């Protein structure tokens, strides 16, 4: 049970990173990104491809970040003159195309079987210590990302982002270059997501295309919206909450003696129903964005 809790905590931290990353885009930049999971996938495949080419983890993280920044640049280029709804669909399409590529270009990605055997980061350590160290690393990463996001959004740069989110025309009339702002935000967010993917690959030790289905993106969306979009603490709380709820779904299923497809159905209901309920009745989320204060949680 202890190790299980550590596992859930690690996953919560990794999703916390993804949630912070999406929150930066959606909550502050107003960028409706439906392809978030592929930025995470850049990190996982960066680690996996570096491993399969006998390169070390440093090359892995570098590769992951390069992939993610390139995809982010492509997203930003697409977003230059698209409305939010069109752009959302476009990012979803790009993410799906890349997932299909990963599924089929076996020479590079291992195809549907993916790449397995990626070494644990703290594999030399005895059993309870290794995962604990990983958890420690994840916590450090999460705190660092939080600090970074906090710093960004409470600065004048953050004001520019918020102005772009709500009044793009006003922002442009004051001299803000919206295309550049979007590109920068996407790239910073992409690096955070790739970091999460890198640690995930070295923790789960397996990378495959099924980890990149678009329902993962919507799970991250649910974390951001339920936690409170535009609030970093909210994004992290949303990630922890959803991750722990998810972890206990199988126990509920067993307790009620339901067939196994109910696990998937219950998770879908949690994500979809939770997201919908918050959008309808509490759009600001559990921890709303603070308006006008010097801090934003």
């Amino acid at each position, binding site marked *: 049970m202890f190790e299980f809790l550590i596992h859930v905590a690690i996953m919560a931290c990794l999703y916390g990173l993804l949630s912070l990353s999406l929150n930066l885009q959606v909550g502050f930049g107003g960028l409706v990104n439906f392809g978030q999971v592929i930025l995470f996938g850049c990190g996982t495949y960066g680690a996996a491809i570096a491993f399969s080419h006998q390169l070390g983890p440093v090359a892995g993280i570098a590769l992951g970040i390069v992939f993610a920044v390139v995809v982010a640049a492509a997203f930003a280029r697409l977003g230059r003159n698209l409305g939010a709804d069109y752009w*959302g669909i476009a990012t*979803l399409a790009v993410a799906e195309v890349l997932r299909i590529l990963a599924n*089929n270009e076996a020479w590079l990605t291992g195809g549907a079987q993916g790449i397995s055997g990626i070494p644990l980061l703290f594999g030399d350590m005895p059993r309870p210590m290794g995962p604990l160290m990983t958890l420690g690393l994840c916590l450090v990463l999460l705190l660092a990302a939080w600090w970074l996001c906090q710093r960004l959004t409470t600065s004048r740069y953050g004001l520019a982002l918020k102005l772009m989110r709500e009044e793009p025309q006003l922002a442009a009339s004051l001299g803000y270059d919206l295309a550049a702002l979007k590109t920068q935000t996407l790239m910073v967010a992409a690096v955070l997501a790739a970091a999460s993917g890198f640690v995930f690959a070295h923790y789960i030790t397996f990378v495959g295309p099924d980890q990149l289905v678009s329902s993962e993106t919507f799970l991250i969306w649910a974390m951001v919206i339920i936690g409170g979009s535009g609030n970093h603490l909210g994004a992290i709380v949303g990630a922890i909450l959803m991750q722990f709820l998810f972890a206990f779904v199988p126990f509920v299923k067993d307790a009620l003696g339901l067939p196994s497809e109910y696990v998937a159905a219950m998770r879908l*209901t949690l994500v*979809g129903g939770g997201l*919908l309920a918050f959008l309808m009745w509490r759009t600001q989320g559990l921890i709303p964005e603070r308006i006008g204060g010097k801090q934003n949680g």
Partner: protein
Amino acid sequence: MVQFVVDVLIRAVDLALIAIGLSSVYSLIRFPNVALVQYATTGALLALGLQMAGLPLVVAAIAACALVGIIAVVLNVVVFERLLRAGSAIAMVGSLALSMVFSAIFLVTAGPRPKRFELEINPPLRFLGARLTEHQLISVGISALAIGVFALILFRTDLGRCMRATATNSVLASATGIDTRKVTNTVVFLSGVMAALGGIGLSVKGEMSAQLGLDMLLPVFAAAILGGLGNALGAAVGAVVIAAAETMVTNVNFGPLFGESVLFIPAAYATAASFLLLVVVLLIKPYGLFVSEVKRV
């Protein structure tokens, strides 16, 4: 060649039905309803259930279409009218969330295993050297008929005139005494009926799975965006283009182009083709092939 045209048509009609629904609703309430593809699955599932309950397929299909139309209207009134007050991006995310709830319901009610309609298996017919089954012929005929009827409604009836007036300028339309809410809900009903018909058509020709709708998501959006979201008949043309692209990718021997005897693109890239087409179109003509408007401000 005839076989190619037949294959394209078979694929295009169902795609067109859903895409036209998506586009017409978009023209009125300015957000792309992702859940529409799940209405298609709902239609297929209901028809299947009613058939298993002992109704003849035709009756089951008609009842299912009507039911889905009603479901679409209820959801529009209860969920989307509320979400739209918070903006079109919120409504779109909400429709995604709703889609996930639908997926959960499908998993629980229909189970994860694909199903088929009970149909007599007849040997395929020959038509100018092309092969197609009787069911395909009937289903294509019905779908084409439905598209025709919808076009008639759009261009030859009062409802169609009101609809086009509302789409052009809803404030002006309601000032001239058009009940825009009623018009919208009528169109939402029709979009539900068409989506259900499309879903039934798809599962008559292949199999029916809980994934049916989500698998259609990007092709349907690709068709609708290609035709210019909001342009109903453009969506039909878009569907033909998408179907042609998909069929071409899987069925055309690209060998001669590259100086080899046989070179087929893997079938897995059939869907990727339509997504890529979508991305390219969004890059070059962001608002579809038939729309000259530059930007919605």
